């Protein structure tokens, strides 16, 4: 075989399979905007540090769900319902990911696990707070006027610190 021809073919192959697709990929490298968090249901703090919960929320939920379902061991810090109560707006729908805290990020990351085919996708209570969570909200968290009753009830049962003087006014 003609060595020049075979060299030419080699170069063509190199271009075809290597350089061209790579350069096409490089052309696609625009900036990627992560989805916005819904301000309405941001929650004032999380039950774990943000970097931990961001990486491991799936692990924590899966890890503890069998104990919850089968043994009745419920960790209020890591309850699925508590996540929803705090972080999802009451008018959000998982079928409209842009409105939904969990679904927006799952869609963005092409994660197809969907807890919400069975689990309720929005809070059943109107007040966004850690309803069962012994972690009290951050001290500077401003209570809404319509949350005062809930707060007082939770404080009675020892689940929350009573609302501060400033917040009650």
């Amino acid at each position, binding site marked *: 075989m003609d060595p020049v021809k075979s060299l030419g073919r080699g170069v063509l192959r190199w271009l075809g399979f290597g350089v061209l697709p790579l350069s096409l990929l490089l052309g696609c490298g625009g900036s990627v905007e992560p989805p916005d968090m819904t301000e309405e249901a941001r929650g004032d703090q999380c039950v774990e540090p943000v970097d931990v919960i961001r990486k491991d929320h799936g*692990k924590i939920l899966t890890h503890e769900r069998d104990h919850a379902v089968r043994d009745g061991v*419920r960790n209020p810090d890591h309850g699925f319902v508590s996540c929803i109560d705090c972080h999802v707006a009451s008018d959000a729908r998982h079928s409209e990911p842009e409105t939904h805290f969990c679904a927006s990020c799952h869609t963005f990351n092409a994660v197809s696990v969907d807890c919400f085919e069975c689990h309720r996708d929005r809070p059943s209570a109107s007040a966004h707070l850690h309803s069962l969570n012994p972690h009290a909200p951050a001290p500077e968290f401003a209570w809404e006027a319509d949350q005062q009753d809930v707060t007082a009830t939770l404080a009675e049962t020892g689940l929350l610190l009573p609302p501060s003087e400033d917040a009650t006014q």
Partner: protein
Amino acid sequence: MSRKNASLSRRQFITGAAAAVAGVTVAPGVFLMRSAEEKTAEGVRWGLLIDSNRCGDCNACVTACHAENGVHGMDRPRTDAQWIRKVDLRDPGTGHTRSLPVMCQHCENPPCADVCPTGASFRREDGIVLVDKHTCIGCRYCMMACPYKARSFIHEPLAGQAAHAPRGKGTVESCTLCVHRIDRGEGTTACVEACHELGNGAMTFGDLNDPDSAISRELAEHGGSAIRADLGLNPGVRYQGI
């Protein structure tokens, strides 16, 4: 080794799965186990007693159960989910009729759990028979095995479930004995509550293992029978007057 530990399976021991645990994160991806204070009460067996002499022509228990657990019909009676239903009995000899609610009977030896190929049907330590929908594949063997026709299959996508009662297409479900209430320590179920408030007070909820509970005292005094007692399933739901 304590008696409790001796009953652990090897897998449970290795994974620590049998310990009543809650995760404490020490580093990303690393969790410390700690004992949780709350779990199913030990030595308890929850049950229901239904006095069919009192139970009348009312539907309060059915309505309350379905409202509590977010069970909505699709106007298709053949396939609609049904956690509890009223059954009318008529003695053809005398013409005497009576009506009573039938739901999951929470058997001690549940046939649904026997036939389940994935282990999704199970009996909790406190006697409540449940479906773990995380592992249910919707094969419906349990529906065929159940002699009480207590289970339903969900055929269609759902929305607006109750927060404490996840339900979804492709899984089987049945009465949970209001397990969310029991775990909150309320000591009653939606049907029993409704029966006393709106109905005829025919239902009693309680611990069958506690001789001082209302249900045990009533059973000791007046007795109660199981439906299809011949099957030897020892259900947790007992009836009087049938």
